[in-house]
């Protein structure tokens, strides 16, 4: 079967359990089992080739640009691991079917499990280290889901998060390490990397790559000081613990070290980092395990210890040690999975995992007793079980290892570890199964059904068989897997058998076993001492770190983003000014090419007015009315300035914009407090003055520098001047630019205006939909109101002015193309004409006489502009291409027409609509039901008010 399919099968199959759970728990588990079985079958099909020493490959170019390709290969090591993953996976699926209760969502469980299985198979089959990274992180994620499977347990959530944080961060470090490695070799393919030992070890990047990759491996395989997550991961259901946290996932780190062994091992750095870490982990795990009362915690620390053992063997860097490591991986997987399952059975039947509450179970649960005892003896290293074989070989290697010139250190520490290891194994048997029968079990224990004990029984059978007939059963497998680890070349001499003669290892074993029995007999006292010693609790430290990180993040985030607009803009201004200043001073400035103009008397007066108004604005800005007046002054002077500097179009636009804005602002001010509060301190104000001053001077300086120089190249405006009449059909170049040369900009801008009005409208609607409305209705005016809201004089004058103003607007509109004016200004003037009616007679009165809705006017304006633009398409020209010509209608003079006129009409309508919609929206704040007067003015000499009053009374 193709390697693609083997790797993909668990992922594809992951869908089925979740779906088939509706057809029952058997269907769900059967689908998971079938998937795994198929994948296992696919793997076994490739077995003959692997045992012939061939490497099966499957390649697919996924992301050649990066070097991330879906390349898989299967050699001895991959075969061993894939076999373990799928084989034990099958047993776990069987076991879990009977372990999980009815309340547990089983479909989810199998789905997560298969996802994990796929990720794991992916790791061991990857021929591309980036692909391997993907699967690597996937195992972290799926293990997160599996540990947190029992959502109701806080321990599950915390354990899941801890496992993800630790193994995930290790994975991140590994990303860096793998990228460095790939960079050194210029390929991300493992097969290539594995052939470049010299290149890698000679590279200056060897050390960083080694450390980063080992960080990944150590976190995953729970090596000291990252071992603490594994016991907390035991909050997961027991099948998960048995599968992920003893037999497979935690071995991914070992796999990686074994995989990389040919290129990374063999240096001093490798030896001292890996072997030492393994040694420490091994002894630490063994010691802690002895004092754990929770069965799963005991097994978890024993797993940590055994992982340390294998790490240490790989760290020795000798070929024979690598062989032993491979052998122990197989043995540990078999007995430890069986032990976990036994622990799960005990938990399931007695409802406790606390050793202190157990004991004497051998009579009640004979089958479990046999299974667990055999597995535990194997763990203790008792012949003729498989654990004994690999432990002997390990001790043999330890005896030959010198650590910093000391030949006794490693064997000594290893002996201690072996002693404790045997002790906790015996304790597992003695304190759970032996001893008197108790009558205070939380539940009445009895052996489970065959479904639950079958899987561990199979494993235990293997434990015995491998112990007795190791060469026949696992000999070839160890040979091909070790061959792959040491990367070709001759396998060293080794012998998988029970009796090696009277060797130092045998003596050490005997010492450990005898010592263990002694130690166990004094366990109670020993435990008191242990509990009395203060120990750093990894979870507390970890929680403190993460908690501290979270608190610090919160502090930074909230401190930085305190939602103060003043601070945000201060940072903005300071940052912009300093970068602009930096840019200026690191460049070269040319000499000014222009000379300044002598100011006349008028500009100086204007300047003084402008400055005076601005300064007053700063001083009096708390009074909103005054500041509005001052803003008006500033705007007026700028308009005059435009006019003085020969820009009549700009002057006209500016002044009409000023008028409209001030009116709208006045209207808005009606609903607001007339003064702004004083909320800044003097220091703050001083700081802000400095910042504002510097930025103002900066802008002034920039403008000065720009005005004192000429264009470095001829400006494009010369083209506009030259082509305004010829190509645009107008003599007013400003208008032609607006509606023709750059009509698209104008198109955008009228849309901006239209949107602004729509937003004001939508905003009003939103605000009036809330309780603000009631507040407004009951509003007491904070200023004395005029008794005559709609004075006679004003009504009359505005009525008279209306047609005149509209006439002016029309005039400005039509002359726009050739003389100052145009749709924009005309629109503003027309809007002012309408606004005057609203002001004179009130919003309600005017609104009643309104025939067209302003939304429609805005929409039509934009549409007319767009349609005019699209008209050019009919002509085969681009959007907004204008055409013009001359028409002679007999009584009239010959006059010019231009399609730009249509565009300008759109501008006109959009402007009128936008201004009026804004006005209408703001007015609605003041609107109250029934305030519409039927009279245009409050006092009308032509009307006899008494008569009306009488009518009303009648």
């Amino acid at each position, binding site marked *: 079967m193709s390697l693609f399919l083997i790797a993909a099968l668990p992922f594809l199959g992951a869908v089925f359990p979740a779906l088939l759970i509706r057809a029952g728990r058997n269907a769900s588990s059967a689908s998971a089992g079938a998937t795994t079985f198929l994948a296992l079958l696919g793997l076994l099909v490739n077995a003959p080739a692997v045992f012939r020493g061939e490497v099966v490959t499957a390649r697919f170019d996924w992301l050649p640009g990066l070097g991330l390709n879906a390349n898989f290969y299967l050699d001895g090591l991959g075969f061993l691991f894939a076999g373990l993953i799928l084989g034990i996976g099958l047993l776990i699926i069987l076991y879990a079917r009977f372990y999980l209760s009815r309340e547990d969502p089983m479909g989810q469980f199998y789905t997560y499990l298969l996802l994990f299985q796929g990720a794991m198979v992916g790791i061991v089959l990857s021929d591309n280290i980036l692909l391997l990274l993907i699967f690597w992180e*996937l195992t972290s994620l799926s293990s997160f889901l599996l540990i947190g499977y029992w959502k109701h347990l806080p321990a599950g959530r915390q354990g899941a998060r801890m496992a993800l944080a630790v193994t995930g961060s290790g994975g991140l470090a590994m990303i860096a390490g793998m990228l460095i490695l790939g960079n050194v070799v210029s390929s991300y393919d493992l097969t290539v990397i594995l052939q470049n030992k010299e290149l890698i070890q000679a590279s200056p990047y060897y050390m960083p790559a080694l450390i980063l990759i080992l960080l990944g491996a150590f976190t995953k395989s729970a090596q000291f000081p990252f071992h603490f997550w594994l016991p907390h991961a035991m909050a997961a259901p027991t099948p998960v613990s048995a599968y992920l946290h003893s037999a497979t996932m935690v071995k991914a780190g070992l796999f990686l070290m074994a995989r990389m062994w040919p290129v990374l091992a063999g240096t001093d750095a490798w030896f001292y980092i890996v072997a030492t870490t393994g040694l420490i982990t091994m002894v630490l795990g063994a010691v802690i395990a002895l004092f754990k009362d929770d069965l799963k915690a005991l097994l978890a620390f024993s797993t940590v210890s055994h992982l340390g053992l294998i790490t240490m063997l790989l760290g020795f860097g000798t070929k024979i040690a690598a062989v032993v490591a491979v052998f122990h991986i197989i043995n540990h997987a078999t007995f430890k999975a069986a032990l976990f399952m036994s622990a799960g059975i005990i938990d399931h039947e007695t409802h406790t995992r606390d050793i202190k509450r157990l004991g004497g179970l051998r009579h009640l649960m004979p089958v479990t007793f046999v299974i667990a005892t055999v597995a535990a003896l194997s763990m203790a290293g008792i012949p003729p079980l498989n654990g004994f074989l690999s432990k002997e070989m390990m001790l043999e290697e330890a005896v030959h290892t010198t650590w910093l010139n000391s030949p006794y250190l490693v064997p000594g520490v290893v002996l201690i570890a072996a002693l404790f290891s045997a002790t906790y194994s015996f304790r597992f048997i003695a304190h759970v199964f032996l001893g008197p029968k108790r009558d205070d079990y939380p539940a009445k224990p009895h052996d489970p059904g065959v479904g639950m004990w079958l899987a561990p029984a199979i494993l235990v059978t293997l434990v015995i068989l491998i112990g007795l007939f190791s060469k026949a059963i696992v000999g070839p497998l160890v040979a091909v897997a070790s061959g792959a680890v040491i990367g070709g070349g001759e396998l060293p001499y080794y012998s998988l058998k029970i009796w090696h003669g009277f060797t130092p290892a045998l003596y050490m074993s005997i010492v450990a076993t005898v010592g263990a029995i002694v130690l166990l007999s004094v366990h109670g006292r020993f435990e008191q001492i242990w509990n009395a010693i203060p120990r750093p609790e990894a979870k507390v430290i970890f929680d403190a770190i993460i908690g501290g990180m979270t608190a610090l993040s*919160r502090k930074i985030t909230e401190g930085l983003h305190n939602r103060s607009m003043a601070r945000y803009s201060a940072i903005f201004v300071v940052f912009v000014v300093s970068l602009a200043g930096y840019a200026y001073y690191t460049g070269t400035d040319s000499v000014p090419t222009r000379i300044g103009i002598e100011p006349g008397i008028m500009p100086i007066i204007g300047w003084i007015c402008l400055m005076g108004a601005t300064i007053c604005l700063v001083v009096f800005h708390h009074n909103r009315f005054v500041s509005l007046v001052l803003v008006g002054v500033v705007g007026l002077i700028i308009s005059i300035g435009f006019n003085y500097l020969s820009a009549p179009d700009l002057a006209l636009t500016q002044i009409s914009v000023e008028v409209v804005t001030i009116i709208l602002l006045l209207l808005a001010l009606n609903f607001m407090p007339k003064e702004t509060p004083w909320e800044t301190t003097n220091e703050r104000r001083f700081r802000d003055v400095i910042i504002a001053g510097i930025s103002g001077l900066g802008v002034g300086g920039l403008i000065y520098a720009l005005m004192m120089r000429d264009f*470095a190249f001829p400006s494009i405006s010369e083209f506009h001047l030259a082509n305004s009449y010829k190509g645009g059909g107008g003599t007013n170049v400003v208008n032609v630019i607006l509606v023709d040369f750059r009509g698209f900009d104008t198109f955008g801008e009228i849309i901006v205006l239209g949107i602004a009005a729509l*937003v004001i409208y939508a905003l009003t609607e939103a605000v009036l939909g809330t309780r603000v409305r009631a507040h407004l209705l009951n509003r007491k005016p904070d200023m004395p109101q005029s008794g005559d809201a709609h004075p006679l004089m004003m009504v009359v004058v505005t009525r008279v002015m209306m047609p005149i103003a509209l006439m002016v607007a029309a005039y400005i509109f039509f002359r726009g193309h050739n003389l100052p004016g145009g749709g924009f200004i005309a629109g503003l003037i027309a809007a002012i004409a309408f606004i005057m009616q609203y002001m004179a007679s009130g919003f309600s009165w005017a609104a009643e006489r309104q025939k067209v809705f302003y939304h429609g006017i805005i929409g039509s304006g934009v549409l007319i502009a767009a349609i005019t633009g*699209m008209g050019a398409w009919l002509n085969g020209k681009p959007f907004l*291409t204008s055409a013009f010509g001359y028409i002679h209608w007999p009584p009239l003079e010959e006059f010019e027409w231009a399609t730009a006129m249509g565009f300008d009409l759109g501008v006109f309508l959009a402007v009128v609509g936008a201004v009026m919609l804004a006005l209408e929206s703001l007015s609605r704040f003041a609107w109250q039901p029934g305030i519409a007067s039927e009279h245009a003015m409050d006092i009308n000499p032509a009307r006899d008010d008494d008569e009306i009053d009488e009518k009303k009374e009648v």
Partner: protein
Amino acid sequence: MNHLIVAPIVLPAVLAPFIIMVLRHHLSLQRIFSVAGTVALLGIALALLGMTLNGQVYVYELGDWPAPFGIVMVLDRLSALMVLLTAMLAMAVVLYSIGSGWDNRGRHFHALLQFQLMGVCGAFLTGDAFNLFVFFEVLLIASYGLMIHGGGPRRLRAGVQYVVYNLLGSTLFLFALGTLYAVTGTLNMADLAVRVAEMSPDDTALLRVGAVLLLLVFCVKAAVLPLHFWLPTSYANAPLPVSALFAIMTKVGAYSILRIYTLVFGPDVEATAGLVGDWLLPAAMLTLAVGSIGILGTKIINRMIAFGAIASMGTLLISIALFTPTGTEAAIYYMIHSTIATALLFLVADQVRERRGIRIRSHSPMPQAGLIAGLFFVGGIAMAGMPPLSGFVGKLLVMDAARQSTDFGMIWAVILISSFITIVGFARSGSIIFWRSHDPDFIDTPEPEVEVEGTEDEHAKEPAPEPNPGVAFTAVFGLVALLVLLTVFAGPVLEFSAETAAQLYEPSIYIDAVLHGGQK
């Protein structure tokens, strides 16, 4: 001349006023037209992308005026890709807003959305710096309208900050354009490129000021530290589908940086040497760091994702700031990913909000918890750059591209540590939101109110959505599908990105097309 080039702008620009004029009282008709318009936009975008595959740069001269005197739209690989991305995102957002009933919680949603699309597409297509300003204005004002859609005091307050801060940016934009025009006498991008390259080395100070001011404008849009302050509060308080749409807005900034600082002030331009990448790279790293810290440090889902958006902009800008073809190639891939992932998370967050409010704390169980949790998990994986989704590929690409930089150790460290913080942050919030709610023993003690933004009640009070979750979930799953496709077809997408990057670093093609009438 192919009118299709201007269609992504004209279509929404006509559709929106039509909706306002004719359909403003008919929500169901608005929906139909809005969806139809977006589908058409998607079709147009696909056709445009197809046109660019042969490597040509197309120019559309508005008003038939030749560049640099008139305004031109320029279609190349990058702009076509961005328009397509916009259209895909818009499709999801429109469907989601309809399905969740968000479009009914205020006025003019569809019209404003179409205007927003017009602004975004215009910014991607224009070849004129001033026209870019106009489209920035269009998208700013439309986005403000969308942001405060539905109202509520907290949203309105956040809206004021948003619009004021961005108006500061707009003012700066005008200063920048004024400076550049006063120095070079042109505003057409291609023409600017030519003139800047010919600029005398004795006269660079003002040009440099213009270049840096313009860059700062784009940095405001792209939320680069320390100019990002507008983003967290406004994204967190906007209606969530709108926040999802805003995922493209920060990309407008990133796009503009990519465009202007390869075309006009490219890495080879001496006049602006040492101005762009030198500080953008550290700023981008800071952005990533602060973004990921924010993910961990906030108690509100919306805000967390807003910081996620900042973090992903950081990663994106690191890649852009390298200003190498491989860096840009990675950036383009990552840009697609980041847009979709951010939008997805915002939409999922809206589903969470509807069910249990926006605070990250335990709560009674919510309906459809499994589905929502799964989607949140997917979104979190994408945002944190974990496998198997495109975020991981993107992160690898960015890191791989950074290898050539002298600061690669620093860049890698920042990316990896930020990833770690992001993972911890998402694991924390996800397990609290989706797992802790199942804890029967957990006593719901209200957390102290550190947020000054008021309470979640305002959000909870929003009218119940119309029961059409099918449409909403279609949008969400559509985004998930896009992420999956982006991962599976990473090879071809990356190939396209590489070609796009190559086109960007060969500005003469663009300049020739615009100024010498290459392809019309």
